[in-house]
């Protein structure tokens, strides 16, 4: 009799325990959002996720630097110790993972929630699609094509804030005279890559971009426009300050915030830093789309993919997380903190500041939106391009002609 009671009690406890566990799971999330603005944004996700009824836990694994973080993620997937969710950039980087069946298929969730209907532009979700299935969640839209200018810095040099890079190059001597660092940039390779890409884009426009990366027109890589873009880059980077090495992007943004430097070419995530510092767009700083009088914006951004776990409970939690990330309320909160644009346009834009409005306006015109090189080319080839630009940027002995020749060669030999 006694024994019977005991067994009953134990099994009841086990049942209770197991149901409690089955609802709540821990999901480890790997990302590289470590700056102040990014931290605020990722906290939105974490808090919203943990606030879900099922009582899941967000385990945060932040590794500074996109390259380092992606490397770590891939290493762990390779080693069979994949995190529950991992941040990636919009690119074709994870195709192989999907192909090997290592990623959680989100298609059913996406169809049930109608992601196709509200996520825009379409291209963003296209990236997540492989063989007709959806494997990732886009969480924001980021554009690289922005300049961030310090209004007091240009005033100190007695200048108007320029609206394109040709004007900025002309303003460099006056800025130097006023003791201001003309172009703020850090030593990290990706900062150079990105800014150089922006510079090229501002010169060659959408048509040139498509000829190069979509059509693989190697001759265009040898064109006048490309040469001019590289020339502008050389002129801008001729005045880099000593402290550039080892400077993070947010440390660099800080130079503009504190008016020590005039201009930073950096994606729209920099806006989060200005906002965090309490600066007002149009008064303390100016955001320059393009930076060009004829601006185009790419729709890069961050995506999360969910490596398969062998635990159905974790899988359920992963799906819940994916759903949470595109929730309109969360999108508004997250993107506001992050400085990026939401992936859906049915969110509340009342909080948007002047810069965000500028961006939204441009993005609303499909002709002004383009896809980055990573959309058309494999990661390996993108990296070859990055290597070239980094080498060009740091090795001032490399002639513009040589850089163009190598550029053409990469375009010509890139894998389909």
């Amino acid at each position, binding site marked *: 009799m006694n024994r019977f009671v005991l067994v009953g009690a134990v099994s009841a406890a086990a049942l209770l325990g197991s149901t409690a566990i089955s609802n709540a799971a821990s999901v480890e999330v790997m990302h590289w959002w470590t700056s102040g603005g990014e931290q605020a944004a990722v906290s939105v996700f974490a808090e919203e996720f943990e606030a879900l009824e099922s009582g899941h836990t967000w385990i945060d694994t932040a590794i500074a630097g996109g390259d380092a973080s992606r*490397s770590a993620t891939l290493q762990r997937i390779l080693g069979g110790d994949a995190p529950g969710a991992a941040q990636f950039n919009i690119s074709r980087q994870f195709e192989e993972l999907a192909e*090997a069946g290592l990623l959680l298929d989100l298609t059913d969730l996406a169809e049930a929630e109608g992601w196709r209907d509200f996520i825009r532009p379409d291209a963003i979700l296209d990236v997540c699609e492989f063989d007709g299935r959806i494997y990732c969640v886009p969480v924001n839209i980021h554009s690289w094509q922005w300049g961030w200018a310090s209004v007091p810095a240009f005033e100190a040099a007695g200048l108007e804030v320029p609206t394109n890079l040709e004007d900025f190059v002309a303003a460099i001597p006056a800025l130097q005279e006023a003791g201001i660092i003309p172009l703020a940039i850090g*030593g990290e*390779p990706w900062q*150079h890559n990105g800014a150089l890409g922006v510079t090229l884009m501002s010169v060659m426009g959408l048509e040139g971009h498509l000829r190069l990366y979509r059509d693989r027109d190697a001759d265009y890589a040898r064109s006048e426009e490309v040469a001019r873009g590289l020339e502008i880059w050389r002129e801008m980077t001729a005045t880099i300050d*000593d402290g*550039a090495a080892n400077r993070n992007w947010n440390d660099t943004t800080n130079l503009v915030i504190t008016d020590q430097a005039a201009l930073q070419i950096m994606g729209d995530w920099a806006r989060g830093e200005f906002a965090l510092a309490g600066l007002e767009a149009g008064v303390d700083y100016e955001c320059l789309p393009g930076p060009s009088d004829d601006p185009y914006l790419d729709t890069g951004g961050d995506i999360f993919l969910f490596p398969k776990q062998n635990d159905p409970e974790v899988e359920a939690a992963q799906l819940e997380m994916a759903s949470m990330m595109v929730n309109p309320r969360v999108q508004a909160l997250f993107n506001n903190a992050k400085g990026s644009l939401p992936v859906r346009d049915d969110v509340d834009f009342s909080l948007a500041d002047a810069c965000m409005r500028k961006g939204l306006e441009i993005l609303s015109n499909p002709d002004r939106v383009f896809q980055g090189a990573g959309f058309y080319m494999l990661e390996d080839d993108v990296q070859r391009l990055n290597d*070239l630009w980094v080498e060009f*940027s740091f090795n001032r002995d490399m002639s513009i002609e040589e850089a163009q020749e190598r550029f053409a060669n990469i375009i010509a030999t890139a894998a389909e």
Partner: protein
Amino acid sequence: MARRRIKINPMALIGLTPMIATAVGVFVICIIYSIVLSFTNSRLLPNFEFIGFAQYERLWETPRWLISVRNIWLFGFFSIAFNMIFGYLLAVFMDQRIKQEDAFRTIFLYPFAMSLVVTGLVWQWIMDPNLGFQSAVRNMGFTDFRFSPLTNEATAIYGVIVAGIWNGVGVTMAILLAGLRGVDEEVWKAARVDGIPTWKTYLFITLPMMRGAFITAFVLQCVGVVRVYDLIIAMTQGGPGISTQMPAVFVIQHISGRSNVGLGMAAATMMLLPIIVLIAIQQYFAWRSRRRAAGIGAAVATLPQAQGVKAS
């Protein structure tokens, strides 16, 4: 003796199992696996679509790799050369009946106890142009003073070399000092009686006698140089640009973030090459000296004692 050799004690086999597993599993199978992958187009996950030497062809056209190779030679040459010269000088100076020898030895050697990550971080901080050594000297009134090797791609590698030497020269010093102390004291006395100046004794008499210690220190340095990874990651992450890229970093980047295992393994195989060459040379010399010893051996049976041991 003979019986022991032939009959395998089962317990001995069990005891040696972890070693056999490591030797065969890691240092034979894993290496072969790596080499095989270098002939495939594996990206992140291993596959076995063989593409011949394509990865090698591509490797030697990849600027990042070419720069890595240039850097490893540069880094290897300068850091080993400085290490040896500075290490020997320190050892010689330490050998001058210095009163505070223990204190100096402690000071010269402690950096070796620190990890290369720590080494890299500290030197990066010292070489920071705005807050580090440069600004400290400028604040003393030398406003034109420049010391910021890491900010310039042409000089960054030398900044790394300075940090590497700081970490490793104490070991070279310790090995060479042990070598110096191992030199027969009577040779020193003989040189003094002969009236040979101290510096000449160090240069012409003890230096050649310390070949063993030098080879040891040199091999140790070589192995360290080929493997250099932590220092780069902590100090420059390969930058500015890709100016301080190293083969070891290249391999790690390609087996993960860059998702081109085939290329990464081709690079790894190339890294193996100098080691194999080094071992082959060493084996050749060992074989030659064995053969020569066998030839002369009979004639000079008394030889191998005193002199032989000290000189080797």
